[in-house]
């Protein structure tokens, strides 16, 4: 039971918040409970690591890999709670339901990351997705929010249906849904049915991580959802879905042998779709959403390297896994920080979301502008930020697998990406604020929000200069429990 402790704690706290909601009036109480719960779950991840091994008769696997992701989603949910408080107060939204949904989503992400069996993965996927659908529509009075929830729900259910159908086909082909049993299965036993099943699973999970051509929902949903929820979306579910994808495609021999080209094409399409789409955006949330698509593309480059390397045996792909994990960590930190700033600066009703509202921010609020610049530069891949090491490790994995053309395409996309990240920096630093904006008092950044910014900033710079602890951890040989 200790092997699933984090998810149990998170679900438990979610239920607790739901039960207490009719009886307790104080918003601070729920915020406190939420912080406590996310921290407790994150701490429980350590317990789960100590007791590593299969749990619930092989349905989940607690190992270093799932520890990393539990830590990641736990930290993400902790930071989202901190960041969401002021937003919820400003928009006068109920807090208890928000935290409950957040807990369930986090628990779902934890299950996704530790799933060793496809139907368990489906449960995790649905837990996190359904909570996400409701969270996307949390601002009930906003048309955009309801639209984003509706879009996410409809498209997400469709994608989950693909996922489920894929599981059924895989079961039909291999006779099992356990990843470990499939790993032992003969690679030659895979036929068209298995390939089709795995392809559908890829479609279902590809939707979740915003891979092209399944990325169309991302800009609209990210734009419409309340900004702290967007912060959660960009960091948490993406990481968890990548975790499951990595587990499947790295451990099942039938998967690795045949899906290299699929990932290659997906990576190229996603990178270009994200970067080219972002070039023309004027709404900062949409710009960051398209950049999320582009970064999913970079991670898919690492997946192409994983499948290419794993053809020589599962152990060979360790540097490529390391690239994916490190990139997800640096990316999650940075996106959280960036969306937190966007949520604070958005104002009541999220009015101030266009790039013009950021003009001259460096003169009105220099500290905030500097933070946002650091996050954008990390997304760009400037040295001394964690994003640079992330890109570097992915380049290294790609070049190691002799995917030179893919590496060059990723390089080209990095430069395209630089253009729109620089555009935001240029607007903040090199344009004068409009007269009305300059007359307004600076936006308040309460303690919780500042804590989020501080943690993400320190994390970005720290891992940009000294990534050793993370790298040493990720490169251990028994990462996936075997």
């Amino acid at each position, binding site marked *: 039971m200790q092997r699933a402790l984090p998810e149990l704690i998170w679900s438990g706290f979610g239920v607790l918040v739901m039960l207490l909601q009719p009886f307790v009036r104080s918003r601070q109480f729920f915020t406190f409970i939420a912080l406590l719960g996310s921290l407790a779950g994150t701490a429980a991840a350590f317990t789960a690591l100590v007791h590593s091994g299969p749990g619930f008769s092989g349905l989940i696997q607690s190992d270093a890999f799932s520890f990393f992701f539990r830590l990641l989603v736990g930290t993400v949910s902790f930071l989202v709670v901190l960041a969401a408080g002021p937003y919820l107060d400003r928009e006068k939204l109920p807090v208890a339901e928000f935290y409950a949904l957040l807990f369930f989503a986090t628990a779902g992400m934890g299950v996704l990351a530790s799933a060793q069996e496809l139907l368990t993965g489906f449960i995790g996927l649905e837990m996190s997705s359904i909570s996400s659908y409701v969270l996307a529509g949390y601002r009930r009075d906003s048309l955009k929010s309801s639209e984003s929830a509706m879009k996410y729900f409809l498209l997400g259910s469709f994608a989950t249906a693909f996922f489920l159908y894929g599981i059924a086909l895989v079961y039909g082909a291999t006779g099992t849904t356990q990843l470990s049993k499939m790993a032992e299965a003969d690679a030659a036993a895979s036929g068209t049915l298995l390939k089709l099943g795995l392809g559908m699973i890829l479609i279902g999970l590809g939707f979740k991580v915003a891979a092209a051509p399944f990325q169309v929902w991302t800009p609209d949903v990210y734009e419409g959802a309340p900004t702290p929820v967007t912060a959660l979306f960009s960091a948490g579910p993406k990481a968890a879905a990548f975790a499951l994808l990595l587990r499947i495609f790295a451990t099942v021999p039938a998967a690795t042998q045949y899906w290299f080209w699929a990932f290659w094409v997906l990576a190229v399409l996603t990178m270009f779709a994200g970067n080219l789409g972002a070039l023309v955006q004027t709404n900062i949330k949409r710009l960051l959403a398209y950049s999320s698509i582009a970064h999913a593309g970079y991670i898919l480059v690492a997946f192409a390297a994983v499948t290419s390397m794993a053809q020589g045996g599962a152990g060979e792909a360790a*540097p490529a896994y390391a690239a994916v994990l490190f990139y997800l960590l640096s990316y999650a930190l940075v996106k959280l920080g960036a969306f937190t700033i966007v949520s604070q600066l958005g104002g009541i009703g999220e009015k101030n979301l266009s790039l013009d509202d950021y003009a001259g921010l460096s*003169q009105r609020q220099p500290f905030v502008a500097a933070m946002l610049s650091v996050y954008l*530069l990390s997304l760009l891949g*400037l*040295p*001394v930020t964690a994003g*640079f090491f992330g890109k*570097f490790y992915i*380049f*290294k994995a790609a*070049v*190691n697998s002799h995917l*030179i053309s893919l*590496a*060059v395409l990723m*390089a*080209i996309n*990095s*430069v395209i990406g*630089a*253009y729109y990240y*620089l*555009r935001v920096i*240029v607007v903040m*630093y*090199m*344009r004068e604020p409009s007269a009305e904006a300059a007359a307004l008092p600076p936006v308040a950044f309460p303690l919780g929000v500042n804590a989020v910014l501080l943690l993400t900033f320190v994390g970005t710079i720290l891992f940009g200069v000294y*990534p*050793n602890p993370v*790298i*040493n951890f990720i*490169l251990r040989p028994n990462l996936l429990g075997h």
Partner: protein
Amino acid sequence: MLHGGHLLSVLIFFPAVGALALMMLRGDDHKFIRSIAMAVSVAEFIFSLWLLHDVQIGASGYQLEEFAKWIPAPPIHYHLGVDGISMFLVLLTTFLTPISVLASWSSIQKRVKEFFVMLLMLEVGVVGVFLSLDMFLFFLFWELMLIPMAFLIGIWGHERRVYAAVKFVLYTMAGSILMLVGIIWLYNTTGTFDLATIQQQLADGLLLGQPRTEMLLFLAFFVAFAIKVPLFPLHTWLPDAHVEAPTAGSVMLAGVLLKLGTYGMMRFCLPLFPEAAHRAARWVALLAIIGIIYGALVSLVQPNLKKLVAYSSVSHLGFVVLGIFAFHNISMQGAVYQMLAHGISTGALFLLVGMLYDRRHTFEISEFGGLSTPMPKLAAFFLFVALSSLGLPMLNGFVGEFLILLGTYQRHWGWAAWAALGVILSACYLLWSYQRVFFGEITVEKNKTLPDASVREKWILATMAVVTLWMGINSPFITKRTAAATQTVMDQVEPQRAYEAAAPAGEKPRAKGVPVSTISQQKISSSSAAAPVSVERLGIH
């Protein structure tokens, strides 16, 4: 943890400490901010003078090395080292920074604190590039200095500053991302990021695979450096960046940042990929010669004075690239000398143009005319600097250009003949523009009452003039110290010749291409023409 001395680390990070201190200050105490910035940059220059004392003359290989383990996987280390070439480039940087601070004393009035912070961070990045011996560290500093420069252009520049800044960043970044792929590929082949180790492996006979691989790697590095130099046809970012940058930005850009490209060619392209360098040499020389002549011709027709000086940079640095790819020791020493001389004289030209802008807020030559009447001292300095830029003997430009042409002539006389055209053309555009700006009648009313050079400006210009003259007369001071380093580059790019050179002397030819060579210079100079030819031996000085 950190093995070796500390001077190089201090040189890299002291301006960062200064920048940090500046950030703590209040933003409106401009005088104090400028004084602190000046003090920090002058102190940095004094520290760098210590390099002259510590670095041994005539010893090949890297000196004052510092080493610390940094990242376990892949193995990346904090490895610094200096040799004759990088020492003088560091000195150039630390010399030009206080000059830039002084030049911006009164022209920068808004966001003064951020300006000097950016300038100091730029110095950190550039000095770091020159001193890095680990390729990853090199790339880190290379990318790091993009952002301060972009801010310097984009915030404190002129009308089209944002366009110029973004163009600068994207252009340079495109090249350097390709270089990153090249670095990782090279790491794949050699298993290390450490430059000295790779050079050792190369000397020990480790082949880089097929010639095609070597050529692709060479190009990956070369394109990034060619963008920076800038080499025709990748030069189009330069005129915009220069014209729109503030004076200090232009001085640093022309004086120092452009040398990063040529330094990279000497440090990476030639030693690591000698075969590919040989095969590409004629094309590179062609581009260099086109750059020399094209840059000079475009300068000739420029109505904008600053753009004229910018294109003259393209022309002068074409000489440097030609000198490097002529693969002759003399021309390589000339290339290094020209790098330093161009930094000083073009830096001074930009300072002077900036002083004109401070008075009239325009760069158009037609707005000037007859300025030697109200501003005789400024005109005198301008003439002095223009003459040094076009290569008048006894001034620094002559030494560099002459050595380049001499060395190039000995290998490919045709290249030298074409390049010499550039010398003539530079005289044309410099003298003609000088005549239009300073001589003749005063055509615009406002020009009659312009103030002459102030005390601060005179100090700046006098310093630059003294250095120019000193470099022109006392060139052995520099060539003596760069001879060993350029000879090492020569040996690495032509290992076969050095191999043969050692054989007749009857001794076993050791791994000559390795920077930490143990063969003394004396033994080699007793043999054939591939000997390290020092400039003194030719009896030039």
